[in-house]
């Protein structure tokens, strides 16, 4: 089977052939076991891929994922000198966390804040003196843990991976 026929068979499967050509391929399929075999393979691959697509999820919490988007939006809005969207209270996350029926948030009280130099994060006991734009703070009240997430280092000059990065330079 040459390439042209192979591609025609594929186009038939994908519903991309004009009606007359589709009839020709159907007739060809009825008498050529090689074409049937190839068609079966193409169909099976398509079915397998359809199954694979389900089940890929963001490997971050909703709050963490959104906080980065919001930060970028605010940054780009500020850069464009457009009026920023109405600010949301930093306590929004806390309210959400404490609201009933919010799954995990029922037991974990959290607070997310973009922390800029000179700011005091309400409720965190944290005052930031120096920080790059993009630094933000997450607080889990229940566990007593505060995370300050830094955009530094952009290309990891501070630390490295487990296989020879600067992290291990002691």
């Amino acid at each position: 089977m040459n390439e042209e026929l192979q591609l025609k068979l594929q186009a038939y499967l994908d519903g991309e052939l004009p009606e007359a050509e589709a009839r020709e391929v159907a007739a060809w399929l009825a008498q050529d076991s090689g074409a049937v075999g190839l068609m079966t393979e193409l169909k099976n691959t398509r079915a397998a891929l359809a199954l694979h697509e389900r089940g890929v999820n963001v490997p971050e919490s909703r709050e963490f994922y959104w906080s980065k988007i919001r930060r970028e939006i605010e940054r780009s809005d500020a850069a464009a000198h457009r009026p920023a969207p109405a600010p949301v209270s930093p306590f929004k996350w806390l309210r959400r966390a404490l609201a009933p029926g919010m799954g995990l948030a029922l037991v974990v009280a959290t607070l997310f804040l973009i922390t800029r130099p000179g700011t005091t994060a309400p409720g965190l006991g944290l005052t930031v003196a120096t920080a790059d734009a993009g630094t933000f703070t997450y607080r889990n009240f229940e566990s007593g843990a505060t995370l300050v997430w830094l955009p530094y280092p952009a290309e990891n000059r501070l630390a490295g991976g487990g296989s020879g990065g600067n992290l291990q330079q002691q």
Partner: protein
Amino acid sequence: MKLSALLAILILAVAGTAVRAAELKLEAQLVWASNQSTSPNPKHKPVEPEIKKKLESLPLKWSYFYEVKRQEFSVSDASETKVELSGKCQLEVRDLGDNKVEISLCGDGKVVWKGAQALPKKEILVLGGKAPGDTGWLVTIKRIE
């Protein structure tokens, strides 16, 4: 009446000085966060369960946390204590009183973050960022005394 009040003030002042004179003992750890169940560096061991639990309570995407370096140190209000966690990562910590410490994180000798944080016992402060190969670096700071 005046004398007793004066005595009370003196006692409080002396007690206050004694408390302030007591140094805060802290522990800092440099941690490598990864989704690999083993660290390529055999010197790295998993962090202690207490730290792991705290890290798991944060929105970090990694499941495994390896201790790269741990260091205990004392801080006072008189001067900054410098803690070297790696060739490129240092902390400068100062006691501000009332369980509060001022922390500077330095990378390549430059301050990349500076803040003041209340650190009562059982609390932990974690500074972190991305590292290559879909991993992360973390510096944990907690009070031990």
